[in-house]
């Protein structure tokens, strides 16, 4: 919701300017970071245990070695041991994916004498029913005919579901901060319940269309989709706390500049569900643990689909 407000404010005419600078920052704290987003895809599941870096340190964070990382299914009692690899701790699914929908999980990370825990429930996820392309004529910022990609999916009845929707164009993940797309039930947040129906339109099409500038042009963009392009969507179920985490992160990282900075919120630390098992610990830890069920669908924009979209254009 708020995300969409800021998107619309960005459209104001802007005659300011922006300069890259490198201010001297305070010394980094280099805290423990646990990046544990596990899902039911039949691929290697990785948990990264690292330290934070100085803000301008543009290197890959190095793994903390010799940690013990386990995830326990608290409903069934199954224990998943994560092996130490070169960049992360991992678990490979063999015949079945990780976990079961509805079960609760506990992550345990033991490192340098201290133990940290986090909990997550594996939530349900609706199927992606279809992917559509809508025809748009050329306009001022996209100077040729183009297509907008959109997906259809229906939130199941019952409040409290949350989702992280990821999109790929031609196999490239739409991972710009501004493309971070979440839904709480079918709507924007818990405080404005929209349940048991198709996701609201900004969720279905607002973050699935990449807006990339044409190199060397100030205000001209590559068409989001043209004939031959493909759109692939995944919906990951997330816990309400993980939704809050991503929601907070969005405002910290999606800084589009210009007028939207008038309405920027103060920088704050993102939340975490990791806690030390020692109640008196004052060790700072960051990161998040979530286990997700995943649904997906992809579609290539063929000439036929394009022709039909053009016919149906309003």
């Amino acid at each position, binding site marked *: 919701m708020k995300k*969409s407000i800021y998107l619309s404010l960005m459209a104001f005419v802007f005659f*300011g300017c922006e300069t890259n600078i490198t201010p001297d920052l305070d010394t980094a*704290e280099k805290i423990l970071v646990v990046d544990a987003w596990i899902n039911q895809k039949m691929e290697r599941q990785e948990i990264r245990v690292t330290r*934070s870096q100085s803000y301008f340190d543009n290197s890959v964070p190095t793994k903390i070695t010799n940690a013990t990382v386990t995830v326990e299914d608290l409903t069934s009692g199954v224990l998943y041991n994560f092996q130490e690899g070169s960049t992360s701790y991992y678990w490979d699914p063999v015949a079945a994916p990780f976990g079961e929908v509805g079960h609760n999980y506990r992550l345990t990370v033991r490192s340098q004498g201290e133990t940290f825990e986090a909990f997550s429930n594996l939530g349900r996820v609706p199927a992606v029913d279809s992917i559509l392309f809508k025809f748009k004529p050329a306009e001022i910022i996209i100077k040729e005919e183009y297509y907008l990609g959109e997906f259809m999916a229906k939130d199941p009845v019952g409040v409290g579901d949350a989702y992280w929707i990821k999109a790929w164009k031609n196999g490239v993940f739409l991972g*710009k901060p501004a493309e971070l797309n979440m839904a709480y039930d079918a709507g924007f947040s818990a405080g404005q319940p929209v349940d048991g129906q198709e996701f609201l*339109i900004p969720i279905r099409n607002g973050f699935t269309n990449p807006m990339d500038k044409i190199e060397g042009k100030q205000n001209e963009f590559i068409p989001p989709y043209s004939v031959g392009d493909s759109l692939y969507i995944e919906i990951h179920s997330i816990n309400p706390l993980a939704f809050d985490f991503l929601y907070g992160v969005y405002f910290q990282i999606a800084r589009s500049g210009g007028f939207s900075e*008038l309405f*920027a*919120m103060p920088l704050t630390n993102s*939340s975490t569900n990791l806690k030390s098992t020692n109640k008196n610990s004052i060790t700072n830890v960051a990161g998040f643990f979530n286990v997700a069920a995943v649904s997906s669908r992809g579609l290539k924009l063929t000439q036929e689909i394009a022709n039909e979209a053009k016919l149906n254009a309003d």
Partner: protein
Amino acid sequence: MKSISLGALCSLAALCSFGQEKYTVSGYIKDTGNGEALIGATVFVKEISNGTIANVYGFYSITLVKGTYNIVYRYVGFKDVNQKIELDKDIRLDLELTSAEKQLDEVVIMGDAIDKNVLSIEMSTAELDIKAIGKLPAFAGEVDIIKSIQLLPGVSTVGEGASGFNVRGGSVGQNLVLLDEAPVYQTSHMLGFFSVFNPDAVKDVKLFKGGIPAQYGGRLSSILDVRMKEGNNKEFDVTGGLGTIFSRLAVEGPIKKDKSSFIIAARRSYGDVLAKLFTDALKPGSALYFYDLTAKTNFDINKNNKIYLSGYFGRDVFKFTKYQGLDWGNSTATFRWNHLYGNRLFSNYSVFYSNYDYGLSLGTSELDKYDWKSKIKTYNFKPEYSYFINAKNELTFGGQAILYRFEPANAVTVSNGTITDISLDERKAFETSLYAGNDQRLTDQLSVQYGLRYSNFNYLGGIVYHYGDTLKGMEKPLEYTEEKKEWESIQSFGNFEPRASFRYQLTKTASIKGSYNRMSQYLHLISNTTASIPIDVWQPSTNNIKPQQSDQVALGYFKNFKENRYETSAEVYYKWNRNQLEYIDGAEIFINKFLESQLLSGIGRAYGLELYAKKNSGRLTGWASYTLGKSEMKVDGINYGVDQKNREGTWYPTRFDQRHNIKVAAFYDLNKKISFSANFSFITGTPSTFPTDRITVAGYVIPYIRGSERNNFRIPNYHRLDVAVTFNNIWRGKKGRTGEDNLVVSIYNVYARKNPFSIYFSQGTTRQPGDIPTVTSATQLSIIGTMIPSVTYNFKF
């Protein structure tokens, strides 16, 4: 009632000089040129070296012992009127002063030999001369009241484009802006670039920063009292202007000469009209404009009764397509009745209504859209009395009753044809207040003003949310809800707000003044962003949100030089604020029925020094001001350092904490034809939160701040010079042409400084490849990064 009887008691003490026969001279003071009341004109009785000041309706009353008196009527920029009166009966003396500009064929505009700033008990107030505002170089050439008051000491803004203003380290939502007494909730057009007040229709602007008299209340930081013109009751006038962003037109004139008049003033921007000529980029259904309409009329029924009716209606519309965009607007209506009981008790009864509403739409079609409308309506009744007891005492008393109706969200979502109503319940509140205050002259040197205001706030009817406790700074868990009847009281608050000030005259040209005031604020502007935004939500105090409170003391020294040619003042102030609002990280402040669970409460303090010097006459006039200030907050759950368990907050600077603030405004009249003006601002960079670390989670690089610090850095300093030249009587001044006109050529930001608005940290907006580490950087943003020239043509006939 308590407060009234207390006030009455205070004044009784002063009524001890019976025995001699006393009579009253009273009346209205007006401008000969147009019949407008002269607010704040002074009435000086030479024999007692004292006098009184005309109130906001131009009425004065002074009661003296029988005798012969020489009375001087004065008003800045007007010729003095000397009256010798034989006071052996009550005398009604309405009179008109003549503008010095017209009388004396010279270029002096800004002042007369008036030592009001030294003599008056008022401190921490600022009045703006509309004529002076008109000469200031302005952004896009458009004279603006809110921008002009930012040139005064103690008043600032967080940057270009930001709505509203900050007073003595307070937030935008802590200012009460009144237009003919009706509250204006949003003072901006086009984000913060222009304000809603049409200068052609404004007569008087007064800002109270401290020493706030008992008749005002409801906000912590300031009261901006804007009074509209009544309209020329002698002849018809048409004024207007053609500018680069918008045009203005105002018509005023008598309905019945000297008895009744009207004014209608309108403005509209035409960016959209021009854009449509040059490009077809604006989609069907799109609109980009703002307009406002200000109107007022008054009737002089008889000597003892006058009525006024005024209204404002304005709107901003930004529609990108038929289904996407936002709009906002204020409307106000005020009816006032001035009635005189005898010649010493002046009364005014005001009934007014104010409405602020906005809407936001997102979507692509009737089947897929999101519509949100919100409004706040205020119904108000306000009786006020001034009792001019004698030359030494003026008692004011009255009250106010306000009904607020908040509609935070009338909202629907339509998804693939399925409609869901996500509206929030209406919230209602009833605020009442009673006040009494007395202005008393104890000795020739010492005057005091003291008063008491009692305010009461009742949050009424609907669903009540009860939240439990949790870790500081985190969202509070909902425990249960209950439903109250529509007009049943859910929570009520009552507060006594004492006010006091003194003035001690050291010499004829110097005085010291001090003041104390307590303010209570029951409405809260929910805003967690750098600048306030038109769709920010106003929220009443509830069972979960306590009213804000503030205590302020101020002390000042006032001195004039060279027969009042130069005015100077120095003031120090200290403010203690309680129940200040903050927000949990990632708070959802729009359409959230659990909003109150995401609010935090803390304390604040602000203190500073304000220096001001003004040159009133000569070819070169103007002022310079300097403010040294500090504004801080302390909230548990914010800026708590390394103690993750207790999370007790420590003091941090607010977003509008600006250490040094220098403003200079200068006007130079070369000759009758050409005049120059310039203004310069220097403001210490505002605080901002800079990260120390970056963490990588879920594929995103997220900033992290060691010790959860807030506002730990400052952006670079802000400074800017604007200049303007005014050419008078370009066309109208010629022979055979009546009226006047001028052409103002102005340049905003002359040396094109790229003043920073903010510095933000991000991984950029370009797509970074997934296989190499994400690059993060810092960006310094200037909202206006260049100089902006403009031309405006103003006319009057």
